[in-house]
């Protein structure tokens, strides 16, 4: 395709990044008063809000209660204005349902579910603007929200995507790179213990290149972890400083 080369001869991508560079991540914790935990994240132009409620008593059908661990309930929705073409249904379509399920699986693995038997934790994720890497941004936002809610987790869960363009693995792919038809590898890890909790691949990728791409994606999750970690530490110190001034 003319005029659309994902990697220039000089080794730059369309948005000017190098293959191993992430997009700029900005995040904030505790943005909602009502929710027990909430977070907002921007990864490049992808913007996601997450809210966490709980642990509380099982809502809805009580038959879903698990006697030995907490029920993690997720809802993924995309704002109608989040994509280039206006969406009809913000949630409930196939893609959103699948995403919901993936989020649930991811957080089931990371949250210490055995601590709250017969209860429920709700994680609501809303994509405000979509520019590729929706799952990754959702996971990262939800992690921050869960931490903000004070729900015990084994570790952060950080997600990152990667692709393979002209013999070079590229990390944190944007919508343009996503829709070019190349392979897409999405991975979510517990970065400190280097455990993979979620791995998904779209399109075809040669087996020989898999490890290269996977390595880069895992490294991407560690970079994401670094950024989130700083944000959490800053938030914790800010909150306590505020409370101390409150008391005096």
């Amino acid at each position, binding site marked *: 395709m003319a005029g659309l080369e994902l990697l220039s001869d000089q080794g730059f991508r369309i948005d000017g990044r190098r293959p191993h560079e992430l997009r700029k991540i900005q995040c904030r914790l505790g943005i909602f008063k009502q929710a027990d935990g909430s977070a907002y994240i921007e990864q490049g132009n992808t913007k996601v809000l997450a809210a966490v409620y709980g642990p509380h008593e099982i809502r809805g059908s009580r038959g879903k209660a698990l006697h030995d661990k907490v029920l993690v309930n997720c809802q993924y929705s995309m704002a109608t204005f989040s994509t280039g073409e206006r969406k009809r249904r913000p949630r409930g379509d196939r893609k959103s349902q699948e995403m919901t399920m993936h989020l649930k699986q991811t957080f089931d693995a990371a949250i210490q579910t055995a601590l709250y038997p017969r209860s429920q934790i709700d994680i609501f994720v809303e994509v405000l603007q979509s520019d590729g890497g929706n799952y990754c941004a959702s996971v990262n936002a939800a992690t921050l929200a869960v931490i903000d809610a004070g729900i*015990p987790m084994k570790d952060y869960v950080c997600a990152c995507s990667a692709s393979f363009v002209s013999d070079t693995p590229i990390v944190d792919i944007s919508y343009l790179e996503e829709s070019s038809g190349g392979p897409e590898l999405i991975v979510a890890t517990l970065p400190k213990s280097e455990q993979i909790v979620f791995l998904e691949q779209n399109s075809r990728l040669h087996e020989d290149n898999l490890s290269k791409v996977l390595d880069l994606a895992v490294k991407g999750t560690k970079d994401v972890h670094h950024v989130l970690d700083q944000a959490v530490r800053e938030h914790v110190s800010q909150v306590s400083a505020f409370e101390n001034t409150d008391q005096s």
Partner: protein
Amino acid sequence: MAAPSICVPGQRLGRLDDNTTSGNGTYERNGFIYSSLAGYLESKDIDDGKKLVEVRTDTKKNIVPSVDAIVTARITNVTPRFCKCIMLSVGKTPLNEPFRGMLRKEDVRATEKDKVEMYKCFRPGDIIVARVLSLGDAHSYLLSTTENELGVVMAVSEAGATMVPISWCKMKCPKTMSEEPRKVAKVQPQFLQYSGT
């Protein structure tokens, strides 16, 4: 005191050995203690020479009732066979949101179980102290008041005054001097603290 250090989920806090125990906000894996919350590291010495490692958060602790815990609850509904209530706090920690509980007729007192009449033990609106018996069968938590220390701690009479206990099964209204039957708890200092009065 040195500035308390911030820790985040997944951070390794130290080695787990005979002299250390992991407390709130931490977990153990492969012989190490890890943090599971974002907060401040706190290590204190507990009695038998051990060191307790905890992570303290500023936000209120999220807890859910567990088996054998003492809970404070308000009666919402009384029937001949059981009464329903909402749990307000577990131990000294108030619950962020109320959990529903059920107190069956058999679990009201330890003796003469078959002679228990629910209406003569509890009324809607009473505040009771109870023990969590089990996590119920898919409905709600099962509670029990089969100890002298458990039962009604606060009740309002028909005249609208807070009643005073006069025996283990009677309470008296200070306004009208009428007596009403209740399963009264023998209130102990620690439970007084629980109910927050």
